[in-house]
């Protein structure tokens, strides 16, 4: 009985400590149309493309899964990410065409090193951007932060439970640095399977196409709402002809 109580208490503490994910915040178009405010545009360094194997959790499972997918993994590493890095220029152009003052930020920012900020407001940021805003000379800050990109294949210990799927995960947001509130927050987790066969070494045309379709979906997720359109991420998977 005592053991169960202790377990329950530990579980309750762990649950309480676990951070709640930031919920999406719709684009605040009126705030973005305030042309007297300067906006900074920052695309964080895009990580190298890789094949993730979630579910292969034990050491031996990881070794088996890595060996079984070595050829696919090598190919995924050759995928290019320029279309994402180039989004900075596209976003800048979009804001400029709307008459905003824009500053493109090239030097890397350690977003995880920003001071903590706490508030009960659901649109409030969890980091304090005010110092960064002053340093950069901006009142608003656009950020595209890609956490992982490439492909993902689910495993149950030693056994793959899905084919590899093209994958990108991250977040897009705009912060009002003076109030530390989100003017837009969009979590991104896009996965797309290859149309038809995927296991076609060495070039993997199906998986490669799916990857570049996912990159295009991310571009649309960034650009369409800013252009005032709807998100066009419903881009269809490749089909006939």
């Amino acid at each position, binding site marked *: 009985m005592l053991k169960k109580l202790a377990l329950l208490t530990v579980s309750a503490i762990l649950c309480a400590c676990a951070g709640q994910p930031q919920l999406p915040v719709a684009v605040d178009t009126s705030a973005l149309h305030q042309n007297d405010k300067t906006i900074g545009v920052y695309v964080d360094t895009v990580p190298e493309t890789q094949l993730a194997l979630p579910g292969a959790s034990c050491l*031996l499972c990881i070794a*088996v899964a890595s060996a*079984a997918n070595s*050829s696919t993994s090598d190919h995924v590493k050759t995928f290019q990410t320029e*279309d994402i890095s180039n989004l900075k220029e596209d976003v800048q152009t979009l804001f400029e065409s709307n008459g905003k003052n824009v500053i493109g930020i090239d030097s890397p920012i350690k977003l995880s090193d920003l001071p903590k900020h706490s508030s009960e407001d659901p649109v409030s940021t969890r980091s304090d951007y005010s110092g960064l805003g002053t340093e950069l000379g901006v009142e608003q800050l656009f950020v595209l932060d890609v956490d992982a990109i490439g492909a993902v294949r*689910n495993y*149950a*210990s*030693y*056994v*793959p*439970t*899905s*084919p590899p*799927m093209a994958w990108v995960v991250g977040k897009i947001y705009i912060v009002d640095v003076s109030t530390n509130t989100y003017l837009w927050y969009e979590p991104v987790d896009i*996965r*797309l*399977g*290859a*149309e*038809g*066969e995927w*296991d*076609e*070494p060495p*070039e993997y*045309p199906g998986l*490669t*196409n799916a990857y*570049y*379709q996912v*990159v*295009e979906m991310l571009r*649309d997720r960034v650009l369409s709402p800013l252009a005032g359109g709807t998100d*066009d991420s419903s*881009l*269809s*998977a*490749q*089909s*006939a*002809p």
Partner: protein
Amino acid sequence: MRLVWIVPLLLIIWGCSGTMPTEPETLSRAYHAPDRMVSNYYLQPPDSEELSIKGQLAPLSDQEAATAMMYPGYNAGGFLAAIAVHAAVNSSIENSQEQSRIDQANQILENYKGLVAEVSNDDLYEHVLSGDTGFNLHPTPKDMMALEENGWLVKSEPTYTLSSSEDAIYIENKVAIHDYFLVGGESESSLVYEKSVAIVSSNSDNFYDAKVWFADNGEYFKGSLGELYTQSIWLAVSDFQEKLPAIGAQASTIRYLENGEKKVERGKLISESCDQFLFETLRGELKVVQRIEIQEPASCVSELFDI
């Protein structure tokens, strides 16, 4: 002793878990360009007189494309049994789902039954031969021996697809060219060129109305299929003759229109006109697609095909 069990078990799991890699569905084959003064091309009619036309398959949803499965792992026997049962059931479900997708896609052709019945592959074959392709294209002679002296035999397998929004018709034509001169007859070794050519019908004014296919008592529909067939033969022979512009060295993302929506595919750009792109897909197929934004004629080539 325990290791004796674990090692074979791991080997079995590894063996069961992976599928055999599939040879890339390559649609092209290495070939040599014509290296002798033979300029006659003999087009053989498709094997079937009946038109091969289908509806466009709907794209797979994320869930259909890959569904995660967690296997119960209470013990090794149960674990392996779960994998085997899942594999068997999954294969059966996938087959029936695929057939269901095909049936659903073909429903769009219900309204076109009358039109389709009036067109045959022979009609379209005649359409190609009656047009001016810019090279010496002839019907296959009755005396096939004539080919041994002078000519290339062009074989084709055209399949047409009506888009799900009925805004376009696609042709996918597997074109093969045989050299009768080298081997004195048709055989595997006489095959000098093989490529799949896919073309989306041009829609230069971005006008979408399914009624257009029924115009002129179906003549527009028939003419469109004939044009697609002619263009596919022209593209393949031009490629064989190495007369197409050089293929781009780097693959790029090609954005085009399908079903009135943006579609993306990776490939190497070969040529572009005001309303179309010609590119080589990652599978080596030649593909002609519709631009998303039609360019002003002052800044682009108006026609992709020199026919």
